[in-house]
């Protein structure tokens, strides 16, 4: 263009025109520069990086009397990547006689900062006997290990980083980096033409790339804003933006940004950015703990993280490390002997790379959903928040083991194709209603369809407690020994048709007590009762139990022809476990910033929606389900002294197999079925109950022992109508009743030898 102007006689003869053209070009350039400037400042000032949220499990609390085996503690320590040796390093442990000695790590909890300690945990059988501070000899009431990092909530770009401040980066790393990549960093203005030339000469002499031509500023600009294409326009933009960056920000700010931005590896679809995360990803150590060899390897990766990947291309990585070590030797950061020693040594990358992929995708999904009311998804994936959740890795493992153990046997029982039988399950604590374990499908690690939250299935007999609870709310009319009719019933429907529910065993049992009707899950008796009570009243009881969705008020609802998720069923049974006090199921309790400042709390909240005495009676009935009813299997397996309350659920054509149950410290729900709604051929008792029982055997340590509410009185009865006119005669039938409503004697309910 310049030649055109110079050759054009008209233009040569018109200096004014030339001036105007140059002014125009200058204006265009200035405008372009302005847009670049805005872009540079916006990126640098605003959300500089997308730092994913870090999700933590519950911390393991250690105290005298806690039911915890040595094996479980060792399992937890291994999960936390504690090494088994007698070194004095933080993050190590060893066993000696009945004790485990642990050098713990410090951790910033949501409520306080806990320093590292040398801890002794003494065991007696399967309980902690005592815990001690070994250095001071002091007995401790309570200590907690740091919580397990279980995953992150990543931005769409799937970048991951651990932010570091410049002052926390080892000096030798900075010196090595500058020596290799940008020797004149503190002298140039963003672009260094002489450096390019110098680097060219140095690289030719060394026979390889020992110096970079681009400055760190240019590399940062390329990472932040631009693609990696090698075009003139891209290079020009890079140069201009580098100059602008240097104009606005000081060297230390730019260097700190670089240390956190530079791409240093790939873990599946998670990109490893910054030296902070790279130190953990490759060597499983914090940045401050890197040795010279490790620093050399990481700095060497800047040139090409994929090309020099130490896990895939060991020889290349070693060669690159050697080149950088030689630079360190020249700087006086290391000696020739050390270089030679490192050259003979392996790279030292950790075998098991700490993965950003979560082992608990179903649970993380629940966490995200519980947070979405308060947080935009972009904030969750970019602000570097710390999310403290309730999941218990040990109990999660027990749930997975129970499923792995039972599912193959259940697969054989169904007529479905291989791997078609699906499972969903949740386990929570009583009291806090904290989720301790959950799985969304038979492939525990799969992301995607989360059956616990999203599979809405008919619940069958699981709904019956709501019907019987509605009855027991009227103590002047119903109690546990009220007689119900389990006989054929025809229900007129709104569409003009009719419905004739049948029992599971295709038999009718005549007059039966309320407690027996529930324990044996008689359909006819339940429908008669529910129709008499009124569907709206049963619907209200479901609301009182925590079911928020509108349930269709059809007669078939009484037998569970209503779709609910596993989470909803868990909420319902949680309210029963809390004796009528609705306690929302929670997966997360605190959100903090990366610095530990609390920004959100999700405390335990309670609301009494049903009288405790009414629920107490209902739970006594559900205890009978296990003692003598459809869940006898659980009582047999867990032992007579281990009390539980629960309900089986089987839907039409055996499409769904459910069990929901309560112990002294746990509530758990298990569902089995097919996503395509084919019959699985399993009842609640022959299917879901098996997994439930194995799970509870491994995770629950308290038998159900409900405190007796003030409004409950007991009565000893000599006879209770059980089923099909059969009268149970005994002198020790003790049942609870609402105070002031003890039962009247009934004609005909006498024992033979009276």
């Amino acid at each position, binding site marked *: 263009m310049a030649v055109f102007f110079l050759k054009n006689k008209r233009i040569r003869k018109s200096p004014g025109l030339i001036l105007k053209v140059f002014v125009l070009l200058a204006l265009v350039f200035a405008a372009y520069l302005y847009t670049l400037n805005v872009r540079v400042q916006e990126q640098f000032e605003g959300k500089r990086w997308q730092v994913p949220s870090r999700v933590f499990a519950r911390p393991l609390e250690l105290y005298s009397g806690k039911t915890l085996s040595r094996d479980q503690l060792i399992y937890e320590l291994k999960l936390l990547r504690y090494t088994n040796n007698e070194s004095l390093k933080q993050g190590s442990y060893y066993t000696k006689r009945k004790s485990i000695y642990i050098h713990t790590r410090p951790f910033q909890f949501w409520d306080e900062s806990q320093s590292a300690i040398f801890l002794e945990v003494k065991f007696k059988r399967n309980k902690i006997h005592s815990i001690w501070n070994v250095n001071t000899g002091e007995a401790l009431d309570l200590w907690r290990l740091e919580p397990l990092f279980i995953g992150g909530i990543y931005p769409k770009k799937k970048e991951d980083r651990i932010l570091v401040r410049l002052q926390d980066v080892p000096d030798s790393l900075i010196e090595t980096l500058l020596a290799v990549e940008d020797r004149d960093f503190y002298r140039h203005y963003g672009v260094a033409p002489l450096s390019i030339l110098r680097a060219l000469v140095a690289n030719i002499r060394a026979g390889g790339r020992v110096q970079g031509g681009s400055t760190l500023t240019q590399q940062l600009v390329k990472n932040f804003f631009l693609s990696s294409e090698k075009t003139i326009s891209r290079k020009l933009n890079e140069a201009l933006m580098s100059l602008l960056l240097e104009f606005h920000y000081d060297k230390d700010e730019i260097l700190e940004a670089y240390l956190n931005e530079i791409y240093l590896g790939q873990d599946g679809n998670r990109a490893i950015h910054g030296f902070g995360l790279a130190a953990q990803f490759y060597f499983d150590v914090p940045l401050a703990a890197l040795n010279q060899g490790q620093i050399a390897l990481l700095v060497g990766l800047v040139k090409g993280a994929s090309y020099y990947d130490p896990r895939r291309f060991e020889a290349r990585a070693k060669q690159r490390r050697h080149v950088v070590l030689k630079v360190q030797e020249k700087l006086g950061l290391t000696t020739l002997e050390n270089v030679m020693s490192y050259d003979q040594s392996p790279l030292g990358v950790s075998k098991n790379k700490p993965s950003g992929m979560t082992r608990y995708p179903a649970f993380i999904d629940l966490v995200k959903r519980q947070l979405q009311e308060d947080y935009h998804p972009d904030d969750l994936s970019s602000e570097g928040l710390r999310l403290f959740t309730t999941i218990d890795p040990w109990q999660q493992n027990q749930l997975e083991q129970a499923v792995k153990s039972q599912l193959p046997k259940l697969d054989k029982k169904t007529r479905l194709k291989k791997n078609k039988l699906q499972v969903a399950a949740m386990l929570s604590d009583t009291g806090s209603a904290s989720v301790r374990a959950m799985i969304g499908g038979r492939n525990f690690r799969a992301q995607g369809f989360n059956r616990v939250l999203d599979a809405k299935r008919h619940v069958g007999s699981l709904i019956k407690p709501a019907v019987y609870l509605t009855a027991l709310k009227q103590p002047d009319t119903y109690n546990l020994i009220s007689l119900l009719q389990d006989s054929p019933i025809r229900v007129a429907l709104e569409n003009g048709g009719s419905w004739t529910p049948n029992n599971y065993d295709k038999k009718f049992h005549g007059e039966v007590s309320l407690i027996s009707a529930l324990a044996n899950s008689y359909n006819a008796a339940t429908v008669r009762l529910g129709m008499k009570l009124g569907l709206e009243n049963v619907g209200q009881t479901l609301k009182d139990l925590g079911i928020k969705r509108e349930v269709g008020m059809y007669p078939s609802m009484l037998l569970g022809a209503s779709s609910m998720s596993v989470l909803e069923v868990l909420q319902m049974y949680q309210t029963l476990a809390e004796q009528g006090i609705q306690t929302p199921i929670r997966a997360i309790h605190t959100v903090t910033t990366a610095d530990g400042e609390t920004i959100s709390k999700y405390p335990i909240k309670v609301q*009494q929606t049903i009288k405790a005495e009414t629920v107490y009676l209902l739970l006594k009935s559900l205890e009978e389900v296990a003692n003598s009813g459809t869940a006898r299997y659980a009582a047999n397996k867990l032992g007579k002294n281990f009390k539980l309350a629960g309900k089986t659920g089987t839907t039409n054509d055996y499409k769904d197999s459910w069990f929901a149950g309560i112990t002294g410290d746990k509530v758990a729900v298990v569902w089995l079925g097919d996503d395509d709604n084919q019959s699985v051929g399993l009842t609640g008792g022959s299917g879901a109950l098996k997994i439930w029982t194995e799970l509870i055997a491994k995770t629950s340590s308290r038998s159900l022992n409900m405190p007796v509410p003030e409004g409950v009185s007991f009565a000893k009865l000599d006879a209770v109508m059980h089923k099909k006119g059969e009268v149970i005669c005994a002198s020790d039938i003790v049942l609870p009743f609402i105070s002031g409503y003890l039962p009247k004697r009934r004609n005909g309910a006498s024992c033979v030898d009276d």
Partner: protein
Amino acid sequence: MLTIKENQLHWQLFVVIFIVFITGCSTTAKKTDSVLEPEVIDNKLPGIGDDERVIAIPPPPREKYQSSPVVRGLLMKSKDKFDAKEFDAAANYIERGINISPNDPMLWQRLAVIRLEQGDFKQAKQLAKKSNVLVESDIEIRTANEAIIEQANRLLSP
């Protein structure tokens, strides 16, 4: 300068808290399982005639609740934070206690007092009710819970 009504409310709150902490500080024998000794105690109950063979079981003897040592430690730490008016920190200790011992009525009661102090009267009332569901036969804890519920009702009324 506090108004007369604020003074009265603070005094009432002080009384409630005093009762609660006195309850928490006292120690007696640990709760044991009671054995029911059925006997006919009153066959003049409504609806039951002389020849009825429905025998009312007397309620178990009243015993004092005792928290476990680790929970007692957390209650003390919570109290320290409460006294320093760090209510969120006080609540954090209680929630840790609930994770360890979910059926301890003292923990729920203490949380109720904290919420009362934080102005969450509805939740304070519900937490006191929760404590009452768990307390069974300890009259002192129940009395303190009733005081909290009464206080919360008063503060909630217009």
